């Protein structure tokens, strides 16, 4: 690959000491290595509990690796920073702020003036379909609208890397599909690097350039595959493509194997 790596994980290990149960002790991640190139859209695919959110937390800087290195442009990551935006599973909006004030939170923290950020803010609000709800408060919105506001909020500071932790997992199927199209369209105009965690195979195939499949706990990168489909993608064309069925079958095979392992590994 010609592009320089933005994010790189080298033999990263992470352990958690379960406070209550010995079953939770032990390795969450074992020797996880991968590279994220500039402008790439990578999905991290795995069952719940395989440590994919842990990887995201390490890259975000919320947590530190026990061994190995997590690097941003060659420098170790120690703390969260605005160049790494994040969209969480829950919208995590601030209920005391209006939708507009939520969306502009990032630029306001970095000391930008309203003149600097408002045009972009209005554009993102339109893009996520919330232009008429800018004065509303988060608790007056539906779940899907909240998550759209959270997406606009993460995107407005123009992060170089966007980390997404199953952001559409809590949405209904129709809203999820619209959000996925929205995400890829914005991504193509802005060319951010995206690391997207999901357990949904279709979602990964629809969104990603590259899919990293994780093993059951302790989490490792079990398989890596390029997604060959041209962009812009439409789900209709995708499901009709014979390569799609083949890819999905391969992934399902791996996922099922790992699921079986984690079931065997489960304490009685």
């Amino acid at each position, binding site marked *: 690959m010609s592009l320089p790596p933005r994010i790189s994980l080298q033999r990263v290990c992470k352990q958690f000491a379960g406070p209550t149960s010995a079953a939770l002790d032990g390795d969450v991640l074992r020797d996880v290595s991968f590279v994220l190139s500039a402008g790439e859209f990578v999905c991290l695919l795995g069952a719940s509990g395989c440590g994919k959110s842990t990887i995201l937390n390490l890259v975000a800087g919320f947590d530190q690796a026990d061994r190995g290195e997590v690097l941003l442009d060659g420098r170790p990551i120690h703390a969260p920073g605005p160049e790494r935006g994040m969209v969480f599973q829950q919208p995590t909006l601030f209920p005391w702020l209006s939708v507009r004030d939520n969306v502009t939170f990032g630029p306001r923290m970095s000391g930008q003036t309203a003149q600097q950020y408002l045009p972009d803010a209005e554009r993102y609000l339109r893009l996520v379909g919330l232009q008429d709800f800018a004065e509303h408060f988060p608790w007056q919105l539906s779940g*899907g609208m909240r998550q759209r506001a959270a997406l606009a909020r993460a995107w407005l500071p123009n992060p170089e890397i966007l980390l997404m932790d199953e952001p559409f997992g809590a949405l209904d199927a129709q809203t999820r599909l619209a959000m996925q199209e929205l995400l890829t369209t914005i991504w193509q105009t802005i060319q951010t690097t995206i690391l997207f965690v999901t357990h949904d195979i279709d979602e990964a195939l629809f969104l990603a350039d590259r899919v990293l499949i994780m093993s059951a706990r302790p989490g490792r990168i079990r398989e890596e595959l390029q997604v060959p489909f041209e962009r812009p993608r439409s789900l209709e064309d995708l499901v009709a493509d014979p390569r799609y069925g083949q890819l999905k079958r391969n992934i399902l095979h791996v996922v099922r194997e790992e699921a079986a392992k984690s079931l065997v590994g489960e304490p009685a």
Partner: protein
Amino acid sequence: MRSEAELALLLPQQEAATGKGPREPAAPWRRWKYPLISGTTVTLFVLVWQLSGSLNWVDPLLLPPPSEILRTALELLASGYRQTPLWEHFLTSTARALVAFVVAIVSGVPLGLGMGLSPTLGAALNPFVQFLRPLPKIALIPLVIVWFGIGEGAKFFLIFISSFLSIVVGAAAAVLGVSQARRRAAQTLGANRRQLFLYVVLPNALPELFTSVRLSIGIGWTSLIAAEMVAASSGLGWMVINAGSYLRTDVVLLGIVLLGLTGYFFDWSLVHLQRRFAPWAGMDS
């Protein structure tokens, strides 16, 4: 590639329509339903109470009916209780309490926030706060008299110390109430420690701060009676105690009604302040 306008159309439109808008005015009946029920039960209660006196079910000396309490109120308004007008008793008590509440809030909230933010400060002060808070403040009265005499200082101190301690504890807990997810969201948006406190931790704590101030004022108002037992010669608390020793149950009940109504009014005002300044209390987002 789709244009931005096209994309916005892609988003489910019906969802926007079902999004809960600003609170809609409820139908008149729905709006007044519960206040009406409350009003009815109170009216019934007062009616039965009145009948108990009028029909001689209960000796009026033991339980003076509302009409007699009203008469006493008018009498005390005109001629005062023990040479002091009723409104002066009332104002003396509320002034004592309000001054103590304000000082307790102004000093207790910052201290509690500090204890919540700094584990060191918390560890240093927590033993004292936790020891004093559940302590019945009446036990302090002898000491308070020795320290402050029997003037206003003693009463102020008793009301202050009871509300102050629970405000401190409440504020410390409120600071810790901010969820990790909210904190992290702010951090990834570039908030530094100061901004995190000002724009996330503090507004996040506001609803709980209101709740703890409400509780504390309730506790403080309760200790007013205790404070006015300390050799006072005015105030509602003193009036109740004094009238009791002369078997003036009508004055006692009048004092109780006034104390109750005032406490109720304090709480009601705080509820409205909370709705005004922290309308998101209890809302999910």
